């Protein structure tokens, strides 16, 4: 046991307070009975009630979900393909340029990405709506997926693919039957990352959305400009809850998988050949 020390306790409290105080206040005020956001009027869940009757918010949530699922799925497919090519193709002229170009959107300011996409959509006469948001989100989250997947592919034993070819697979079969199942954890975390990015995004969506489609962050942002309502607090609390549940579930799943693996290894060593 480490000894209790005032210094450690203070650093811990300050650190956590810095990180979580704003969110705690937000959660507390979401249960405020008063209509005034900064005045405590007793405990109530009425704002959650009005929230689920608010069509505009529900529509926005539905759009956000659709955009998130579709764009992260497409981004995962494209990003994995890009990673596979970058890691496997070996040296070819322009390789550095290519890989640089894949990773560039990672450091590009969102405003610029959004603006350029907007100009492109106007230029080719594409009507802005949910489809353009999906395209935009796919574009910027694809590079994140490709970074995650290529870091896994670099550590991947090339001989496994050669073994699959040697045993009669075509290149595509080797990828589907051997490479993909093995890199699946990286592909899934790439998808989750893309999905989270899409849920969070405000700037790019604002540039590429049309009047027909509004995402949840856009809706919150525009409502807040008219004044913070207790309803927004309730919505934000729900979003925090969803994210928390997601993170906790993911970590529990990975912990259980590692425990199971350890157990299997123990069993394997107990049996003498």
């Amino acid at each position, binding site marked *: 046991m480490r000894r209790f020390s005032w210094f450690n306790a203070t650093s811990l409290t300050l650190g956590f307070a810095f990180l979580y105080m704003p969110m705690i206040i937000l959660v507390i005020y979401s249960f405020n009975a008063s209509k005034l956001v900064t005045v405590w009027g007793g405990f109530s869940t009425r704002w959650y009630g009005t929230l689920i009757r608010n069509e505009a918010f529900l529509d926005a949530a539905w759009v956000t979900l659709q955009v998130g699922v579709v764009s992260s799925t497409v981004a995962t497919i494209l990003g994995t393909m890009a990673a596979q090519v970058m890691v496997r193709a070996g040296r070819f002229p322009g390789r550095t340029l290519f890989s640089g170009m894949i990773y560039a959107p990672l450091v590009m300011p969102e405003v610029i990405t959004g603006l350029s996409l907007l100009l492109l959509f106007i230029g080719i006469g594409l009507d802005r709506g949910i489809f353009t948001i999906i395209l935009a989100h796919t574009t910027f989250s694809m590079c994140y997926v490709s970074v995650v997947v290529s870091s896994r592919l670099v550590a991947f034993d090339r001989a496994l693919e*050669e*073994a699959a070819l040697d045993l*009669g697979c075509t290149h595509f079969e080797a990828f589907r039957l051997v490479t993909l199942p093995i890199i699946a954890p990286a592909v899934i975390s790439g998808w989750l990352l893309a999905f989270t990015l899409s849920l969070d995004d405000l700037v790019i969506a604002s540039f590429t959305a049309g009047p027909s489609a509004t995402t949840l962050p856009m809706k919150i942002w525009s409502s807040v400009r008219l004044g913070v309502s207790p309803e927004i607090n309730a919505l934000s609390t729900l979003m925090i809850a969803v994210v928390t549940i997601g993170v906790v579930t993911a970590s529990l799943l990975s912990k259980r998988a590692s425990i199971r693996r350890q157990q299997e290894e123990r069993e394997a060593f107990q049996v003498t050949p």
Partner: protein
Amino acid sequence: MAQPKPQTVFAPWTDPDAKPLIRFRNVTKRFGDFTAIDDLTLDIYEKEFFALLGPSGCGKTTMMRMLAGFESITEGTIELAGQDIAPVPPNKRAVNMMFQSYALFPHLSVWDNIAFGLRREGMEKDRMNTRVEEMLRLTRLERFAKRKPHQISGGQRQRVALARSLAKAPKLLLLDEPLGALDAKLRQDTQFELMDIQEKTGTTFVIVTHDQEEAMTVASRVAVMDEGRLMQVDTPAEIYEQPATTYVADFIGDVNLMKGNADPKEGFVLLDWAPNQPQIKAETSKNFAAGQELHYAIRPEKIAITAEKPAEAPNALQGKVLDIAYLGNISTYHVELPGGQIVKAQTANTRRLANRGFTWEDEVWLSWTATAGVLLES
């Protein structure tokens, strides 16, 4: 060291009518400016256990990867059963490979690993089951069929890799340093197991190794390679007893090399190799010019070590014991001659330690017959 198999006279390479399974014809492979394989011609016959032996970077792995289809051929042709294999992709070749890292699929059980190639072939279920069971029996893995690769030991993994590559009954099996990851004891057992399996299945095996003892043990013929060229292709016994070059003599086993000038006589050569030392007498059927520079190679175990000068020895040298390497079954004596040259002599320790004669600084005589060593042109 392995003995040549006495009962079977398996030597298709001596038969001019025998059709080789694999023909390398003037094969060259370049990676950029680097030449990995340099104008190499080689025949390998059916049912052979053929070893490619050489230091790392000698091109042996490249040769194997060209056979498997993972490397293209820069110049020349490789034929498998009479057909040029250059246009055939790896998944269409009747060649399977056992990888150095084993490359077992970690997400599949032992059973599914072995069945993998058969499934790709579209083999029907009953036949596939029978075939996989057969392979499991052959490699003694029945009990581990349900396990994943990370749940079995290194030796078992090695056997799974072997079973998987044999399952499709290839014409040719390539083994890339198959025993490199095993410890010494397991390795010896596995060598004999490999030979046994090779005999049972009648498959042609080509093994790549840098371990000369392994090559000598398992192979019917050994190709010694260096810098993309074949130095010598022969049976293990021939390579050991009749090395073609000083490189081969030095690479395989332990050897004393003496450089000198030839003094040819009728049926033998006298070699002037050091001032103030008697000439070495070596019987030979080859003709050498007078004064030609030659190397004389003699294995340490062919040299006898005695306290007194032997009466009838064609070659006898006197020296002082400088070092003794005691290996249990044998001892190697490093004997220093008056001129400073060091000659290694080996004796089997047939008696226990207390009864043996020589120790450091002892004056001893080294002697050997006229047929014990070989003369090599420089």
